[in-house]
């Protein structure tokens, strides 16, 4: 009756945002990220005072900075993770173009902070590295292009995305920043793989890589020496790797104790690239394995959740971000344990950093947005299975 008089009650489009978010978000990954951030603060307390002392700041300057930027990063992450995939895509593509403009303008306005590579914009209170923001943007745009190519009568998006990736790689190589270039290429490769790259092509590429490596090893003395030096079991204890290895060995299973470590005094990058060595020395293998487990949880859980995803864009973009996140962690820790040749790469969310933390927050926020559970036509899957 009431309805006949007043019309129907305006139907609510859905549940309130926050409860729905909490119900659908991947809470395991979220917890892992928060834990990683906490561990980062904890390790920063140990690792950064020597640097602060050297640069003339109060001891916990870098920890406070980490907390401020980390807080901002977490905020950004929460907000992003509440967005719908479509909004993420739009903002991501927009963000990509802004970041790309920033990257292209680096040679003009950028600074190198005396490190020999022009990668940063100096903003007075801090610095911004456009390539950090470019990565999630590129993943979103690339995934969109690839997803579009899967439409019937769609554009050749895979080719477009490859060209885009190569352009970015060229810009990054100019800086030079080969680490980020490798990550961008890897991100594209992962998306291409999941988007259905022909297996023969993949096998061929792998074969070509092995062949090229062998040829280079046999013909280029420089290359061979680097590889041999990396493979040789002796570590010069005065190199960064040497200190890191020594720190891990000193730490043993349970560490030398909080604040008792010494590696942070000898390693200039103890608070960023080699923070895992600080963790290993002071807290031992236990904490290191816990950190590894946290990264594994985020990466692997995201991949598993994406397996159910029906939307190709979400699947591809989520895969790209999750894999980049995992790979960055693997490379950072692989360097510290001498599985990989030295390459400056931070440990996401744990390493001390400014704008890169915010960029990481954006990326993880996107990942969480993509991996939220959505109706995925599970019934049809079940039916299809039973038909077989």
């Amino acid at each position, binding site marked *: 009756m009431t309805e006949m008089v007043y019309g129907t009650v305006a139907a609510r489009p859905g549940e309130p945002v926050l409860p729905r978010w909490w119900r659908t978000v991947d809470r395991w990954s979220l917890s892992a990220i928060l834990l990683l951030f906490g561990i980062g603060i904890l390790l920063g307390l140990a690792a950064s005072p020597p640097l602060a002392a050297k640069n003339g700041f109060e001891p916990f300057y870098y920890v406070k900075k980490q907390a401020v930027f980390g807080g901002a990063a977490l905020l950004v992450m929460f907000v992003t993770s509440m967005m719908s995939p479509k909004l993420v895509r739009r903002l991501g593509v927009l963000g990509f173009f802004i970041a790309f403009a920033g990257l292209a303008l680096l040679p003009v306005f950028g600074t190198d902070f005396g490190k020999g590579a022009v990668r940063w914009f100096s903003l007075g209170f801090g610095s911004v590295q456009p390539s950090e923001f470019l990565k999630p943007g590129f993943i979103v745009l690339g995934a969109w292009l690839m997803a579009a190519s*899967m*439409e*019937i*009568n769609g554009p050749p998006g895979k080719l477009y995305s490859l060209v885009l990736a190569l352009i970015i790689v060229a810009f990054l190589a100019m800086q030079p920043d080969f680490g980020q270039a490798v990550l961008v290429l890897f991100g594209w490769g*992962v998306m291409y*793989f*999941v*988007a*259905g790259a022909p297996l023969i092509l993949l096998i061929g590429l792998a074969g070509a890589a092995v062949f090229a490596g062998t040829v280079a090893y046999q013909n280029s003395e420089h290359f061979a020496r680097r590889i041999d030096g990396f493979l040789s079991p002796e*570590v*010069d*204890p*005065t190199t960064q790797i*040497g*200190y890191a*290895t*020594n720190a*891990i*060995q*000193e*730490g*043993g*299973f349970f560490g030398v104790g909080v604040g008792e470590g*010494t590696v942070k005094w*000898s390693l200039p990058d103890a608070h960023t690239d080699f923070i895992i060595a600080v963790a*290993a020395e002071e807290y*031992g*293998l236990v904490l*290191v*394995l816990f950190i*590894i*487990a946290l*990264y*594994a949880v985020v*990466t*692997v859980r995201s*991949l*598993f959740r*994406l*397996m159910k*995803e*029906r939307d*190709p864009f979400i*699947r591809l973009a989520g*895969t790209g971000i999750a*894999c980049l996140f*995992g790979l960055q962690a*693997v490379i950072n*820790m*692989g360097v510290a*344990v*001498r*599985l990989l040749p030295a390459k400056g790469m931070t440990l996401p969310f744990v390493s001390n950093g400014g704008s890169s933390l915010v960029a990481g927050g954006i990326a993880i926020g996107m990942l969480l947005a993509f991996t939220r559970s959505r109706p995925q036509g599970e019934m*049809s899957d079940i039916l*299809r299975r039973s038909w077989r």
Partner: protein
Amino acid sequence: MTRTPLRPLARVLEARAKGENPDAIERENIRLRHERMRDRMRVRAESRLLMMAVMFVMLFAVVGARMGVLASTEPSEPRASAGGESIVAQRADIVDRNGRLLATNLVTNALYAQPPMMIEPARAARELAKIFPDLDEEELVEDFTGKRKFLWIKRKISPEQQQMVHDIGEPGLLFGPREMRLYPNGRLAAHVLGGAGFGREGVHSAEVIGVAGVEKAFDDYLRDPANGGAPLELSLDLTVQATARRVLEGGMKIMDAKGATAILMDARTGELVSLVSLPDFDPNDRPVPLTEGDPSDSPLFNRAVQGVYELGSTFKVFTAAQALEMGVAAPGTMVDTQGPLRWGKFRIRDFHDYGSEMSLTDVIVKSSNIGTARLAQQIGGDRQRVFLERLGLTEPTPVELVEAPGIAPLLPARWSELSTMTISYGHGLSASPLHLAAAYASVVNGGCKVAPTLVRRAPEPGCAERVISEKTSRTIRGMLREVVTRGTASFAEVEGYAVGGKTGTADKPRPRGGYYEDRVIATFAGLFPAHDPDYVLIVTLDEPTVSALGEAQRTAGWTAVPVASELIRRVAPLLDMRPEIEPGPAFGVKLTGN
């Protein structure tokens, strides 16, 4: 434009027939196909994502396992010694044939600075500049206050200097222990020893490596810990070396020569008892090599080994020896010396006109170019070359100096008959004085080839490689003795030591071709005692002049020979040789053995 087929055709056609819009049907069809395709792709992506997940699990597991392995191993090195790998600085001593020290090590300190630890950089710089006058105070201040975290100030400092630096009391000035090479005899044997410098350098130690001479040639041996610090024993005799150097330096000054070298070699074993090259240098403080100009003007240049010269008439002995050995001539055979000897457009002359012919002995004694050239013509170029090869005059000497292997004699490009004739009296083939010493020793010691060496070596019984017969060698020795008693080297006579030898004076070649008129290389190649030579001596003077008989004399008989005779007079007693003085006839006593 590409035409996309209408699908599903049957229904589209049916709709068209009914006048309906077929687009809706087509869209519906595309949606369904899309749905199916998505499902297919998701199934494929599912397996690929699973592969990725497994890959990441494996990667993380590998990193974790590696962490576990590392954590469970002991640290390879204690932290305290992480400063750098230890550098072995032990270097064996070098001694002469009697065990006297030629080179040893001395513990010293290197001075370095760590500016971040400095309290008063300006004062430290001022005090340092006071202690070391060669340091510049302003530069030091700049270094100490700049961005540098570490810098070397001095490689070697004395204990007194170290104490003075201590007294500055600056914690940023630090010392690194060093072993430095010390040559207690200074310039003596500088060219033989060469010198040593620092190789890899760390704060706690530095490697001492040889940079020249025997120090470099025996670098591996001297640094080999397996030798247990046993010294390297050279064939040099320190006292003889000191005397030879003193005499040669005096002679060089008197004869106004710009360089000189003396080689004293054991005629049987080839051991170099003394090797002097002037000008020389102090191996404790090696001068830097010349960057421009003629390297042979540098004091680092070892004239005895590195200098290749046309050694002039000293080569005539080889021609005579070969002629005797081949039976071309006997000592008494008359040789045509009618001059000048024309060959094509060239003329060969003698210093004096010796008449139309003279005996082979006189050809050597008077040093006739024409006579030697005639003999060489009879010997022939090929055989001459083979003979000189056997004497070692065509390839680098095997002496244990790092400089030696690169110094090969300069041979004529084509061994023509004219070359044969000029080489017979020492022109057209340039060799080092050391080559000459070894060849002379081989010819006069009874005909056994010797190889020059700087390492003490026991005499070998028998004759490893015969160059000429015992008889020829004896004849040559007689001729060389006659050169001194009645020939060009009359100043070489040292009573009681029966010196024999041959002079050689060669015009110096101009760098741009042709020869100088007034610059010569004067050489005396001698042996003593002539009847059974123990030693061969080569004295070479570079551009000597001495005024005698009212004019400037440059020939070896006036320049190199007097120096050589003084050298023998002073050195022979040091070599434990007794003068054998024949009692004059007035005594009327006949010596019957000693």
